[in-house]
């Protein structure tokens, strides 16, 4: 069964590139260009993985991440944070907000794909309740 990934990113050309990469990697894809849209899709699309840009309009990536973590039904959802800022403070803030992994722009496409696959291959994921639309009506 194909893993689902949500790409939350407001820069269109980056979205295009991520779409291409994830499709290649066999993911089922949805995209969101702001934080609100991302949150909606998280609850409806139920992605295994969210690739989340920090600097999103309307709701920041950090906020979206925190809300995902606050929802027990989303415990199995993995979050890969992307940011254009390279400082360790941003890294820390991302981890604090509950991100599972973290990549700085510009990133290596191979590394991104590898990390995304590693995150969704985590055995815990399979045990997590409510992971996947199969359990949703």
């Amino acid at each position: 069964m194909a893993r689902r990934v949500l790409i939350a990113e407001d820069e269109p050309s980056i979205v295009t590139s991520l779409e291409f990469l994830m499709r290649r990697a066999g993911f089922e894809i949805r995209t969101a260009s702001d934080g609100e849209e991302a949150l909606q899709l998280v609850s409806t699309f139920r992605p295994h993985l969210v690739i989340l840009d920090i600097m999103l309009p309307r709701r920041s990536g950090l906020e979206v991440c925190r809300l995902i973590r606050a929802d027990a039904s989303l415990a199995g959802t993995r979050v890969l944070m992307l940011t254009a800022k390279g400082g360790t403070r941003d890294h820390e803030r991302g981890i604090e907000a509950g991100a599972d992994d973290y990549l700085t722009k510009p990133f290596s496409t191979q590394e991104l794909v590898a990390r995304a696959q590693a995150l969704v291959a985590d055995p815990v994921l399979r045990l997590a309740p409510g992971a996947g639309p199969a359990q949703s009506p």
Partner: protein
Amino acid sequence: MLQGWFIVTASFAYIGLLFAVAWFADRRAAMGRSVISNAWVYSLSLAVYATAWTFYGSVGRAATDGVGFLPIYLGPTLTMLLGWFVLRKMVRIARLNRTTSLADFVASRYGKSALIGGLVTVIAVIGILPYISLQLKAVSTSFQILLGYPEIAMPPRAGSMEVMQDTAFYVALFMALFAIAFGTRQLDAAERHEGMVAAIAFESLVKLLAFLAVGVYVAFFMYDGMGDIFARAAGRPDLEVLMTPLGGAAGSYASWVWLTVLSMFAIVFLPRQFQVAVIENTDERHLRRAAWLFPLYMLAINVFVLPIAFGGVLHFPPGQVDADTFVLTLPMSQRAEGLALLVFIGGLSAATGMVIVETIALSTMVCNDLVMPLLLRIRAFRLTEHRDLSSLVLDIRRAAIITLLMGGYFYYLLAGEAYALVSIGLVSFAAAAQFAPAVIGGLYWRGATRTGALAGLLAGFSVWTYTLLLPAFAKSGWLGAEFLERGPFGIELLRPTQLFGLAGLDQITHAMIWSMIANVGAYIVGSVIRRQSAAEHAQATLFVDVYQQTGEPGSSWRGATSASALQTLVGRFLGPARAVELFTAYARLRGVKSVDELEGDRELVRFAELQLAGTIGAASARTMVATVAQEEPLGLEEVMTIIDEASQVIAYSHRLEEQQQELEAATRELKAANERLKELDRLKDDFISTVTHELRTPLTSIRAFSEILHDNPELDPAERQRFLALVIRESERLTRLINQVLDLAKIESGLAEWRTAELDMREIVLEAMNATSAIFKSRGVTLEARLAASVPPVMADRDRLMQVLLNLLSNASKFCTPGTGRVEVRLAGDAATVRVDVQDNGVGIAREDLALIFEKFRQVGDTLTEKPAGTGLGLAICRRIVGHFGGRLWVQSEPGQGSVFSFVLPVSAAAAGAGRLSANA
């Protein structure tokens, strides 16, 4: 029981008791455990104010004037309650300068002028003689009345008997001996008399008790309480009138006011009051308590005055018994022998206390400020070369005391009978009041001069002599009576009791009005017309600014001398042994082993001068010290430098205060600047962080697509083409961004090059529209223009203005919907400005974003599918360019209604002069 020998024995026993108290206090003082250093003793010693005059005379005055006796006690009460701070200042000054007397104080204030000291002394002596005579009269009268017991008979008039048989003469003689024994046994650098003060405090208690005893006796034993006396008095028309506020005949509001003022001065400026209140004060804090204790004493000693007066008038047939003697004669009439004796002792006590303190104070003045300066000045005496002068000083004082009492006795013979007790006292009060302007003025008015003080004292004293002293002599027949009635040489305008026609006032009020006008007037005029000498200026500063000084006042001595010469000099007045003691102590204080090691510097000379000043007064001390420490003639500038020390200290502290405030202000500014710098630093960090972010975004796309193309050679050509186009587009974006960041940095740092020239805005607008027409066409947006036919030229950089217009036009095109989009450019000008508007019908800008869009990297979110490919720096740069040429760029917008970006530029100065402007097209 009341035989002459018994009364005399009792009197001497009482005086012996006073000596015992004094001896005890002196001994305690020598042991370092002063009995007088407390506020109670200090307050009681001030009660030396209440003399035999109070003791006998108040009742006498109350019997004729009713409550008219009160101002004499109201004045001191007011002074102590309201004016204690003036006294405190005098105490501080006197202590710092080792002042020995009132004359010394005044002389010291006006440049240590021996002339002023002498004048004050003369005024004090002449002015106080009536007062001393009053004590003699009171004691001898009361003695003779008591001697007549059980008969109550008034003694014969003064002068009607031989001097050798006159009681008053012997009273004067014995009092002189008491005073000599009390006050002139030794000389000290600090002219203080602990024993005397203790005896005075004791004496004040005795007279108070005696008076209260009579009061209680009259009110409660002879009558049924105060109410009874007043009720009976109210039944007699001659007494009833005395109970009205103005009292009897002598009462008027003017005399109430003037008597109060007079006694306000008297409590400070009578030599004996100055002595106990200022010279003998051991602690300034005692004044605070004395401020209410002393008025309390005044109240206590006055409570029974009216009851006794009324009791006497009611008891004795009219005209038989002098009201001044009621205190004594009332107990005698009831055969209360013991009480009568107590009253006599109380009166004696009051008189003795007054005479001792007054003559000691006056003899100090006579010696230090009159005789010594004269002797020192007359070279024939070669006094400055004498080895030991201390015994001479003491002898002068003793002689002075005897002279004073004899003077008092002769005044009593000459004029004593002319007035009642109270009137005699008031004459002295009026003399003492003449010191008030010079002293009070000297305390607070820096500009008061020696000339002014001399003029004021002389004028006031002259008027006093003319209006009070001469009439007293005239009334006793010593001067022709027509002098009083018709004036000198028959000039009525100059009648001494109605000077210049001022009539209808009692004699004291009349004299006070004229003497104060003359005194204060001359004082002010004299001070204003003559400049202060350097020495006066120094002393004036010392006095007026006494609270600003720390430690001892500075000195203008310059000439170096030897310590031993100074020690010898001091020894001549204080005795060699005492001098050795003082100088050894001083050497220890300065941290050297012996006097020989002391340097004869300014401080040492000043120390010696102070020691001498305490003995012989400031003026004489200066003369003496000048014989060993030559005062080098100083240039005026140097003098001013030295003597202004005190004021410089004040000025310095003011400066320090100012500097501190400046420092605080500077600190605040620095803090603010630091905050601004921190803010700027934060902004810079933000900027760098934002720039980095903006650079990373296109880089991310470029790298991602490059890797995709690299890793996927099998991509179909269409997709490959699409990705490559994105790489190119993002590269362009990156380049543009870098250029704009650099551009902005250049503008902000002032490094940008501006090629300023006169430009025709119309031409530039047309060119910009031409350049962007392709973009508009490709986006399906209509571009229209409404331009004025001609506008005045502006001063600007052509390329930069073009940059602004291109930016605005491109922005407008981006935010319009393709197809229906419409952008209008308008150009207009007037005499002062040229204005350009770029209006679109695009999405508009939310109100909260209006201010933000001109900030760096602020791109307002759009509703179009694709984000405008701006850098977020364009508008920030535009605003800076327009600002650089003195113009303004702004925006008006409503969401959904489109936006208008406008800017104005000032018309070039040359063109503005031409004044031609064109209308809108």
